[in-house]
């Protein structure tokens, strides 16, 4: 039984795949650059004796990615699909050009949609499997920064609600983690309101809960009430916030 991690070569994806390798799960590691993937897979083989295959593919080319993953997983029981994939852009302030905005939507949303649509039927036929997605606290409420990124993550949240509605009655567990600040390259060098969570600790938590956790969850948990407050802040107050 194979676990596929899409976005496995860095940050949280790398930490999650390391956790899975420690549990001796069979892995398909997917990311855009073969050099990162080969190095990561080699490390997991040496350190944990894990079976780790790699697939280098750009998430922006989502239909081709789904085809490639379908071929790579042909004839195998897919136990889990994990999507720690995402793209942000420091110039995403409402003036982002069409092609780049489209690329972000492809990576953040459509790559997940395409891969799931390709592999979900098999999982539902077997009546088992786990699908895990990752949203962001940036999706809590639209603001003048991370405009397209937030929109794509909010769309992803809606998609995962639908996915849960569709797949859970057929035995597939669907979970969506809404991440706060994490100590990865996405947050490096930024002055932030709250401390950054350690990606290794988050990965351990997520891997512990695989197959048991359903629905949406904030990580770290403190972001649940923070997000709730932001959502319910009157517009007159929210519009004054600069973050």
């Amino acid at each position: 039984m194979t676990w596929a991690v899409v976005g496995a070569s860095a940050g949280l994806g790398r930490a999650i795949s390391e956790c899975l390798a420690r549990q001796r799960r069979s892995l398909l590691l997917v990311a855009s650059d073969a050099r990162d993937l080969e190095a990561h897979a080699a490390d997991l083989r040496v350190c944990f004796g894990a079976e780790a295959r790699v697939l280098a593919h750009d998430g922006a080319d989502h239909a081709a990615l789904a085809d490639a993953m379908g071929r790579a997983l042909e004839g195998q029981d897919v136990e889990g699909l994990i999507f720690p994939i995402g793209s942000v852009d420091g110039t995403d302030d409402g003036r982002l050009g069409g092609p780049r905005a489209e690329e972000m939507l492809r990576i953040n949303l459509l790559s997940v949609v395409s891969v799931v649509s390709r592999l979900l039927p098999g999982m539902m036929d077997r009546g088992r499997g786990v699908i895990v997605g990752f949203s962001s606290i940036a999706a809590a409420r639209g603001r003048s920064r991370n405009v397209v990124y937030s929109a794509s993550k909010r769309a992803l949240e809606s998609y995962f609600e639908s996915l849960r509605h569709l797949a859970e009655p057929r035995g597939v567990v669907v979970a969506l983690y809404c991440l706060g600040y994490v100590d990865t390259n996405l947050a490096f060098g930024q002055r932030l309101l709250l401390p950054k969570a350690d990606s290794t600790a988050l990965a351990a938590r997520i891997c512990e809960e695989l197959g048991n956790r359903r629905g949406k969850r904030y990580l770290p948990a403190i972001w649940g009430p923070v997000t709730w407050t932001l959502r319910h802040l009157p517009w007159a107050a929210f519009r004054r916030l600069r973050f």
Partner: protein
Amino acid sequence: MARRPADLRSGGEARRDRPVSGGAGRGFASAEAELVSFDGGTRCRQTLVRPDRYRHLEQLGPKELRIVRGGGYSYAAASFGAGATVQDVRAFDRILAFDGTRGILECEAGTTLGKLFRVCAPRGWFLPVQAGYPRITIGGCIAADVHGKNQFRDGNFSRQVESLRLFHPARGVMTADRESGAELLDLTCGGLGLSGHILSARLRLARLPGRRVRVRRTRIPRLEDTMALLEAAAAHATFLYTWQNLTLHGDTLGRGFLYAGEFLEDGEGADAPESRVVAVDADTRAGLRLQLLNGGTTKAFNLAYEALQAVAPDEREIGLHDLLFPVARKVLYFRLFGGAGFHEMQVIVPRDAFATVARELRRRLSAEPFPVALASCKLFQGTPALLRFDGSGVCLALDFPRGPASGRFAAWVDALVRDVRGLPNIIKDSRLGMDTVRACYPGYEAFSKALHRLDPQRLYRSEVSERLAL
């Protein structure tokens, strides 16, 4: 030397630059950071980038000054300074291959010594030459050509380096091994990170005789006895070092202990995983505002340590992890120097000059007592080359608190070392001047010329390279 194209890419498709955070839109995270040398002697504010994918390494401008940084544990500022962009490459810490039959391991340069120990020791292998803290990276060990407590038997770190992959923006990825690229290998081992970015290294491991070491302690009556006792113990010891008290007066100055360790072949268990390692870096080391180990307390500190050692058993068994990484359990010692920091001077004193150095130290410290917090000796056997800290004799290390008089004492030691044709360790001393290095290192000119041949633009720069005019 095998050359490859200047692009690091080997299969991944090109991607547009994507600013991630706080950076200048160059496709990777960057920040303005204040970096400090481990001894607290050098501080610089500059751009720090933290690449975590290979494509990030290609995204600095081709003429942009840069320097690679691992754990940041160098006492001298070898991984920052000179206005260069600092590339923190600790994310590149993966083991690429392991041949459990021949004991050959290939890893990325950001891999830590602690990780290698965790992976190799259970399989019966280890790196015989290690630096003293498990979070030091392999790249750092190569760039500083570090040594351990067994230098007289196993040499420096470079002896176990089979080959390297190195990136330089003007030359692409280069492979250097002993057959092809020996000059580049030579330049990079002990090259202070100035010859390029070490991507990965193939290392030759040694069979692990056991996981525990028996350490025997013997008395050293006075400083002048050190050399003879070290040489006598060397015949039957694998690890050898001393601790000596230079805050005493009269005949007892330099009194202390010699520690000789050897593997217990049937040693079992008592493994010390990295979770027991007390975390420290250059920032947290300097966390205390007060310098608690200072001119007024150093003597008491030494006497207390000596008393504790004296009541401990003469012979004890310790885990290899604890022996290889003593700093992991002695972090408090470094913290006691506080924000003001400390000096460490480490010099190889030629065998025939040790008596002179001991005599001069006695004369100086008797006339003008000085708070030497730690004095320690190891036996060295080797040949100096380029800027590598290697040679034959006694390696004498002195730690003392940084203060108004410390610079004068350090300058006096510099002059003594020059007089006896000793060799100061560049990586341990953040104030060592170019004149001293040029006078003591016969390979200084050769290193400088080879470096400029390899890199006429001198893209890899640090405070150390500027201070030493490299």
